[in-house]
Each structure stands twice: as structure tokens, then as C-alpha cells.
């Protein structure tokens, strides 16, 4: 969870699950999010700035934020669902 360099992380929001509480926008240290006043939901505006601190993903009460490495061909041992026992 160590903060990494900028520009290595994709930040995605499931709009269907976002309730627009604004926590991500308020506490992201890099101002990656903005609240969309019309939709009443968060949206990603500064993805390049993200340092992968993890705060938003851990604190979104609705599990609506997904962080993933930009480089998609990371090895599959990184896949948590493989570890989860049924």
C-alpha cells in the first residue's frame, strides 16, 4: 500500500453503486475526484495525479471505486480471488 509514483494507476468508479457521498473527493490527497453536481455522483478528473495511496478504495462506503495498475499484464498471483477459499 506504499504510495507509488504518479500515473501508474487507473481509477474507476461504478456509477451505479456510487451514492455521491463525496468522501473520495474530500479526502483524496491529489484531488483526483470531482463531484458531478448533475448526476450527484463522483467522477474521476485527474487520474494521472493518483499516487495509489488507497484511501478512496478503502473508504468508499459503497465499494464503488476500483484502483488497478495501468500496466495490465501483471502476473496473476496478484489476483486475490485466486487466493480466496470458496
Amino acid at each position, binding site marked *: 500500500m506504499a504510495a507509488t509514483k504518479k500515473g501508474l494507476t487507473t481509477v474507476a468508479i461504478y456509477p451505479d453503486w456510487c451514492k455521491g457521498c463525496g*468522501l473520495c473527493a474530500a479526502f483524496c490527497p491529489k484531488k483526483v475526484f470531482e463531484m458531478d453536481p448533475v448526476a450527484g455522483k463522483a467522477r474521476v478528473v485527474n487520474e494521472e495525479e493518483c499516487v495509489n495511496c488507497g484511501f478512496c478504495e478503502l473508504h468508499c*462506503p459503497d465499494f464503488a471505486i476500483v*484502483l488497478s495498475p495501468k500496466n495490465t499484464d501483471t502476473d496473476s498471483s496478484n489476483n486475490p480471488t485466486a487466493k480466496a477459499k470458496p
Partner: protein
Amino acid sequence: MSEVTQLIHHYLRHNKKFPHMLCAGCGHGILLGSLIRSVHNAGLSKDEVVVISGIGCSGRLAVYVDFNTIHTTHGRALTFATGIKMANPELVVIVLMGDGDALSIGGNHLIHAARRNIGVNAIILNNEIYGMTGGQCSSTTPQDCFSMTTPFGQLEKSFDIVDMALASGANFVARTTAFHAQLTDEVIGQALANPGFNLIEFFSPCHTQYGRKNKYKNAIAMYQDLKSKTMDVDKYKALEESKREGVMPIGVFLKRDDPALETRYAGVRAKLQEAKQKKAEAAKAAQAKPAKAKEPKPDKGAKGKETKQDKGDKA
């Protein structure tokens, strides 16, 4: 961090309606995420975990996770947990309660579960209010604060959950908040690995029912508040008495590994079993040499069994 949300999805019941029923910004959702991550990190299988909840917004969490889940009645979750743990000590029992649940209607069960040191992990989602029923005061609503039933300010003092757990005999006591998801993951993880009664107080902002009545502009302001007023418990202890006002210590307050009730019970049973075996052997020996040995007197209360054997011997 790429795995966090995908991981959570692996443990959610996707045949339930999402997003969940909680209000926007409700701290309870953050706890749900922490719980899932902690169970995952502890390497537990879904089948061995039992999540037991009371009634309240906090009680509704159980339905969303793909474990064995039991949504009990208001205040009684710990009594179910006690029965389940004693009935099957192999199960990992996690109890989710609201502050009203755990301290008002269920306060007696809480102190007794701690005193017994039953092997249960209890998490109290403290939002300082009755969320589900529309914002009436609870036994953790701070003095002078407002609620639907304290329109002129709360006159009564509130419980300090950590103090109460410490005084009642819990094995592990920690406090964390919805602003501190990482700490929450950490303490739940520690609890899951600790025997006996482990209690975690989780401060969980409820803007809908508490914040609005107490001058918080929005949910964010409540998280801001948690951010600014909390301090690691060790640092807090080092603080001068006069500087502690308004500071909320968080972290682990106590951790010990006294044997859990179910373990002690198993110990007693093992002893009894051994004694029974010895007695049976002695009886055998006595039968071989009937003249000398005398049957030990049957002990009081075990009448049925003893009579049964006596009659059998005579018949």
C-alpha cells in the same frame, strides 16, 4: 491496492440488491469492507465464518455477505453467538451490533459475554444514535447533544464502550473509526487471531440521523471531525491529563490470551471423561475380585445414570 474492490465483490451476495440500503456516507459500509478484507487476510473459508447481527442499520449488514449469516433480534446477537460458539467451537463467530443494540437493550449481554470470555469477536458500530428508528438518543449519545428524543440536549452521560469492555473482562479491546479503515482491518485481524471475547468499538458517522441534528454540514464534516480528534492510544497515554480534553484515543487498549469459555468447558469435559473411564476400569477390576472392592458412592444429581448401572449390576 488493485485488489481491494474485486476482493470485496468475491464475498458479497450478488443476488442481493446493490448498492446496499445504507445512506450515502454511512460509516457502516466502510466497516463491511474492513470485515471482508480481514476475514480474507486471516485465510478463513466462507463456510467457517458466522456473522451474527442485531437489529438496526448495523444489523442489516449481515444479509450482504456470503458467510453463514444470522440477523437476530434487537440486542440479543451476543446470546445467539454464545450458543453457537459453545455448540460448535470450530466456527469463527463475528457479531455486529449497533450502539443501541449492544449497550442499551443488550447491555447486560455485552458485559456477561465479556465476563465469560466466550470466543466471539464483537464489533459495535457506534454512531451515537438509533439510526434505523429515526434518530432517537442512545446510551452513547454524548451529553448535551441533540436527537429526536433529546430535543433540548442529552441530560444523561454516555457510556465509554472501551472502559466498559475493559472492566467486564474482555480479552481484547480496541477502538477504531470509519476514517481509519486500515487500522480497522488491522484490529479485526488481531481479534480474529485472539482467543476469547474480543471487542472492537467502531465509530461510524451517521449524518442522516445524528450529524444533521448536531451541526455537521454533511457526512464529510463528520469524517473530518474523526480525523482531527483521534490519536493513537499510546501517544494519548503519554499526553498530560490537561491536554486530553476532546481527544479520542484509538488503537488497541488491551490484548491478552486467557483461555476462552469453550476451551475451559472442553477441559472440564476431558477431566470428567477421564474419571469416568477410570471408574469403569475400577468396576471391571472389582468384578474380577468381587469380595474386596466396594463401588464408590454414586454422586448426587447423577441419579439416573447411577441407578441405571446399579440395577444393571443386580439384574
